[in-house]
């Protein structure tokens, strides 16, 4: 089991707060929307990942437990 971030692209409105809080895992595209690195979040960054999830104003960001990595888009 590992933890991965996913985003619901319908709900996300591109505030970009998540990318500021977790730049190693979330970058912004040319339009300001987050590109999520589908790789597992290492243990020492889990607290930061949870903080990013909590600070997303529209609750678009999620932390998921997965045996195989999702593609970064919540589906």
């Amino acid at each position, binding site marked *: 089991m590992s933890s991965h971030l996913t985003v*619901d*692209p*319908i709900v*996300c409105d591109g505030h970009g707060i998540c990318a500021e809080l977790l730049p190693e895992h979330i970058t912004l595209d040319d339009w300001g*929307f987050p*590109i999520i690195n589908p790789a597992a979040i290492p243990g020492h960054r889990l607290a930061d990942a949870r903080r990013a999830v909590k600070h997303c104003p529209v609750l678009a960001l999620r932390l998921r437990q997965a045996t195989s990595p999702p593609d*970064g*888009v919540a589906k």
Partner: protein
Amino acid sequence: MTATATRAPVITTTPGATLPRLLADGPDLRAHVARHGPLPPTSSGLLMSLEQAGLKGRGGAAFCTARKVTSVATAGGETVVVANGSEGEPLSAKDKVLLTKAPHLVLDGLALAADLVGADRRILCIERGNPVVEGAVRRALSERGESGAELFTTPRRYLSGQENALVDLINGGRGKPALDRPFVRGVDGRPTLVDNVETLAHLALIARYGPRWYREVGTAEDPGTTLVTVAGSVSRPGVFEVAHGWHLEELLAHAGSCKPRAVLLGGYYGRWAGAGKLSELRLDSASLRREGLSLGCGVIAVLDDATCAVAEMARVATWFAANSAGQCGACTWGLRDLAHTTSALGADGPDSQSPGRLMRWANMIDGRGACRLPDGAVAFLRTALEVFADEVQEHLEGGCSRARRHLLPTPAPEPWV
């Protein structure tokens, strides 16, 4: 419907097997029963037959039908089956022709699929505003005298046929995709099997004649026949029923193709293949996969040497942007910018940075929507930039003398209400 003509060449890969299978039917119930006999009751072995027949979905993604059926059947509770005949690909006519010529095969398949997943609602969806198709379907429903299948008509938009959007429409929404997968939570919030109408027609044949018969034509990986729509620079466009594994060039000759410069396989959701590759290609996934291609929804569009490809690319890119549901950032803004930049490439004084920028954006957008609509735009543009690289260079150097022809139709989507 862009192509209404129906030609079904009789081609076989096994002696004694005759084609067409789907398009020789009906359209009326008496002719249908005379040819195929009455609908057999759903036996306990049908799912096994379906699996052995190796049927794959004909809506574009070629997913294993038996697996989809199983996941809905085992989801528990009351379920729903949707026959997807919305066919929003502008060049595709195969579902319209099938529903007009063999509506009873589709309705048989819908009834069988409903039995397989234990559904108590069956819904046949077609795009509204096509009196020929709607008339044929209504006639077939009344001939059967059954109240079981509901007819649902969808707005004239590409996205109406996307399964999440279709479920949203049936549930009374505007037809914008939600993230929920239909087989988990679909119509009325229940597990829903969404199958293309051609897939269901094949199911009706498999139930009657069995998997061995089904495999008498086609290839091991892609058994049976498939409906294709041939369009573009051909003198005899139309819908053909072909055995999987047939040579693409033979089909193109049947359709009266010019000497193609390139062929678009799978419709606007598909990919371009340059002329140099065509002689290798057969109409089955193993052959197409080697070249990074697939048959998709079965649209095969030919582009000739005299038509400006960049102008066609620009119109299709603009069409994709107009068809976005405007919900996801990368799709809404990404497709808009792809459209603007592709259009600028075809206009006076194009920017030499444009092809590189388009590729970068394509990579950035791919896979980032809630549905796969943007992925279609990305595949179309990436392969177009590759296959038409020489012409793109001509545009950048100030001159492409080819005609701007509007070969690929780009109907405006019905507005969202």
